[in-house]
């Protein structure tokens, strides 16, 4: 028995549609509007689309995007000194799989950048595996003209994958190695993780950017679609992928804009309690507690959700306490206990305040007794601490009343 028939028997063909190997080698240029570009490593296919700055994408125009100064992005924990959008490159890859590892290829790399008059989306496509070197060569040329890469989830996905491709190519190219990298996903999560269930780009487009995709290809279908293209050379299979990638790139630009403008939004202009709360949190971590308080106040006013309101109040009171502004914290603690009488931590704070600040032992004892009743009922782990506190208060009261 020869090897091939043996293989056929040992590893029977998966009945996927290998019947469909029609060669519809159609004209890519007319479908994708790109052109072949030669490199020292052979050709690769480049699609270039220019968007006038007046063009609107969702809520904003590209002119708004480029004419903004990006000086507040460090609110999101990314140091962005000397960030200049003119020297930045948006980057998003489409790959042959999500598993990672050395057998995953980036077959389409989308790049976005601003020229004085336009926003340009340039896409590098390998029409087959033998065009990978040319793709990487062109990609490296583009990267080296800029100083910053902007991606969405590039830290864990796109950049390591491209670095692997560069390593395997052995072209000795630096790729993204020495470039500053801004990952918008990480920033978006800091701002919207309370507001949105998912911080995927599609979810952000729907809820934040006002972008509606029509007939978009789901990401998980992309590798299969590309493999089918390789078999059939049917360029229509790529049209959706190319379009998908363009929107990814352009949406990144307005997402960046939105992140910047929100970071500079004064508290009184906030219109979303979750955003205000998130900015408060980020401001506090940027060592701006007074600013954080302002955002918390705004958030509290906008909030219509009890749980959130309590969270905001507790945070505000905690900041006030740290600032030593007990007289401002006091009404907030009282308010919290009105809404949530079972909030033992706040009861503790209040008891501490009366005991140590105003030496009002009666109020401290009263609050502790109420809290203890709740604690006994709910078998809270705080019970023993509260019991301890009560005993101490009783002792102090006794000492005070005793002659």
């Amino acid at each position, binding site marked *: *028995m020869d*090897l*091939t028939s*043996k*293989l*056929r*028997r*040992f*590893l029977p*063909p*998966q009945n*996927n549609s*290998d019947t469909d190997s029609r060669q519809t080698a159609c004209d890519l240029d007319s479908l994708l509007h790109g052109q072949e570009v030669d490199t020292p490593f052979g050709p690769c296919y480049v699609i270039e689309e220019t968007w006038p700055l007046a063009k609107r994408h969702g809520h904003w125009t590209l002119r708004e995007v480029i004419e903004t100064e990006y000086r507040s992005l460090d609110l999101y924990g990314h140091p962005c000194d000397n960030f200049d959008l003119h020297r930045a490159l948006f980057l998003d890859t489409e790959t*042959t*799989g*999500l*598993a*990672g*590892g*050395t*057998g995953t*290829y980036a077959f389409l790399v989308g790049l976005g950048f601003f020229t004085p008059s336009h926003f340009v989306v340039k896409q590098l496509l390998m029409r*087959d*595996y*033998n065009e990978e070197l040319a793709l990487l060569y062109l990609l490296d040329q583009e990267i080296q003209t800029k100083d910053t890469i902007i991606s969405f989830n590039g830290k864990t996905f796109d950049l390591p994958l491209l*670095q*692997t491709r560069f*390593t*395997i190519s052995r072209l000795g190219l630096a790729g993204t190695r020495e470039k500053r990298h801004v990952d918008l996903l990480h920033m978006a999560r800091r701002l919207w993780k309370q507001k949105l269930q998912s911080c995927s780009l599609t979810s952000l487009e729907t809820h934040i950017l006002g972008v509606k995709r029509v007939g978009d290809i789901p990401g998980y279908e992309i*590798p*299969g679609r590309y*493999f089918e293209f*390789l*078999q059939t050379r049917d360029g229509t299979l790529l049209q959706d992928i190319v379009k998908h990638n363009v929107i990814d790139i352009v949406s990144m630009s307005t997402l960046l804009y939105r992140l910047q403008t929100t970071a500079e939004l004064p508290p009184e202009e906030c219109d979303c309690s979750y955003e205000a709360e998130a900015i408060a949190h980020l401001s506090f971590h940027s060592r701006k507690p007074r600013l954080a308080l302002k955002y918390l106040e705004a958030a509290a006013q906008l909030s219509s959700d009890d749980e959130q309101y309590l969270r905001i109040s507790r945070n505000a009171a905690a900041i006030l306490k740290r600032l030593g502004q007990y007289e401002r914290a006091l009404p907030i603690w009282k308010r919290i206990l009105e809404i949530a009488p079972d909030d033992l931590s706040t009861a503790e704070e209040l008891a501490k305040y009366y005991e140590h600040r105003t030496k009002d032992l009666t109020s401290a004892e009263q609050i502790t007794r109420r809290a203890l009743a709740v604690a006994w009922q709910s078998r809270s782990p705080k019970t023993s601490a509260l019991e301890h506190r009560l005993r101490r208060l009783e002792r102090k009261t006794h000492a005070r009343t005793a002659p």
Partner: protein
Amino acid sequence: MSVGVESVLQKIESNPRFMNNVTFRHTIPAEPGVYEPIPDFLPVKLQELLRRKGIEALYSHQAAALHEVRDGKDIVVVTPTASGKTLCYNLPVITTLLANEEARALYLFPTKALAQDQVAELMVWSDELGGKIKTYTYDGDTPGDARIAIRSAGSIVVTNPDMLHSGILPHHTKWMRLFENLKYVVIDELHIYRGVFGSHVANVLRRLERICKFYGASPQFICTSATIANPQEHGEALLGRSVTVIDKNGAPRGQKDIMFYNPPVVNKPLGIRRSSLLEAEAVAHELIAAKIPTIVFTRSRLNTEVLVTYLRKSFQKLGEPHETIRAYRGGYLPKQRREIERDLRAGKVLGVVSTNALELGIDIGTLQAAVLTGYPGTIASTWQQLGRAGRTDQPSLAVLVANSSPLNQFIIQNPSYFIDKGAEYARINPNNLYILVSHLKCAAFELPFAVGENFGEVDPAEILDYLADQMILRKVEDRWYWMSENYPAVDVSLRSASTENFAIIDTTDGKTRVIGEIDRFSAPMLVHEGAIYIHESAQYHIDKLDWDRQKAYAREVDVDYYTDANLDVELKVLDVFEHEELPQVKRNWGEVMVVAKTHMYKKIKFYTHENIGWGNISLPEQELHTTAYWFSVPKEKVENLDRGALQSALVGASHLLGNIASLELMCEPSDLGVTAQIRSPFTGDPTVYIYEKYPGGVGFSEQLFEAHGRLLWRALSIIKKCPCPSGCPSCVGPVEEVGVEGKTHTSWFLKGVLEHGSNQQTEEILTPTE
């Protein structure tokens, strides 16, 4: 304190109950060491360190290893347990690393425990040498942030083949520093990599070589192995390159007394002997009571626990503290192990109970006696376990306590097989089509294949083309690229013979614990609903078989019957690879399709062998495409046997040969299936087939084809030596299967097959055993 092994021996010898069960004794005399000076070419720092550690000279094999590696050879060091094998690789590696900080070494150990043990030792060395040599383990437990440091800074990366296969090679770009600077690959316990596991590992090494080549490295291989019969051949098959074998042991050794102990028969019809676990406990008790530091090996973790409990109880009665007996598990950290060792030296611990996983090179110091609960399955493992007791210059004792299985009984009744033969052959078949194709996929994922590129000795073009046809790869110009979303390494497990084993779960008293595993192919026979499954001399009733989830639920029972399922095996020969025709026998090996179906089972009463009931089994038919060895006897040669007698002879021969074959092959009996046909549709004659249960086979069939005569002769000698009257599970199988004349029929049949064989060969086989 310690009474000493000699006086314990005297005591044992004067105990008739004990000595009646000792079937064999053997004394290996003490031998002095052979030493060589520490070579001058070792860095002065390293020489000084050796002297600080009290090493003034090297054993001859250590020195030989150093010289061969210096000459650029790839080596395999084959010496017994506790002969200082680690120095054979650590000295050359450290020498290179001290001279070149960028240099890297990769150590492969078969288990995580061994890897951790090794790293602990290397770290001590590194500290004493100034801390420049960074050693790390890289396995499934390594935390994410540590991984990054290991990839760039680890001078010695210690891992296992599984991790290399699924974690390192598919991400080789992250390991660029390692691969670009790789000077040595160290493979410890080479003999473990045999059969299916070895066949996989050989392919992982082919992939490693490919990646090294890509990064411009050509590392040297330094391997160590327990004693096997064919270290050269095995090393070369596994590494795909020629190797230099160093097998002259220079380490001294003390006198060693070996005893084979066969527990008395307690159930004659089933040939079941008293539990080896209980007997081992008795033996261990004797030794520990005499203050001899003793290690007891068991064959499972569960047995380890049981034995520790038993021994502790009996010593508590004697007023000994709890800690006298310690379990010793693979998962223990080096620190815990050092503690046990310290307590052993201090005499606080006297008994250590361990699973046989620890036969592998972990050093636990000063033991004077070893008790083996059951034959470990191979001669190599047995020597390793026996070697755990007795350091360089002290006398020691080792007792092998047999169980009822045919393999154990063969060993116990044929001690010369064990003593004279030395060790088994380790075999692999890296070109098993399933295994090869799996790894070609992984390799293509790692780097595209170029036309004309070889994979080991294989030209993979045809297979790659096939995979391209299947749209798993894509061929463009002169290369094949990976064209799938999947990460192929996750689908390939290096260890499991059949990837789908069934777990047998004991649910007695509402608890659930796994008591055993069984391959998919045997499951319908042995764990169908209603089956009585015998495990460690206890009976279990199978209440439920969950076929899809591969679980059998069992409950301990005490019944007076056993079950016997009828397995209908249809075997079709697809292709003959080799055959030999003699007047009295035709033997072959080739490719077969096995279709097995179990329809019903019988309940058979003990002693009377009455058939007291039966039940239906409705489980799916099973297909297995594999390789087999078979022999047939021309029907005119067996004309004087009536059909019943011939049937009985074939059943007996099948039973026997299945067990002998696994002995010959160093594999588990469950890796093989045996079936016989009175009139084979393929040969037209009475035929016995032994087939491999791993799809595609791993080379066992070819080996059996070559071993044919030896196999039959051994079978015959077992029949002759078995004390049972007409057949038992230790020889031709239970009487109720082979009939009262089973032994006679079987031996007549086997003699017929052997009779006209090459006389010279027969004599050769005859001499050692007779």
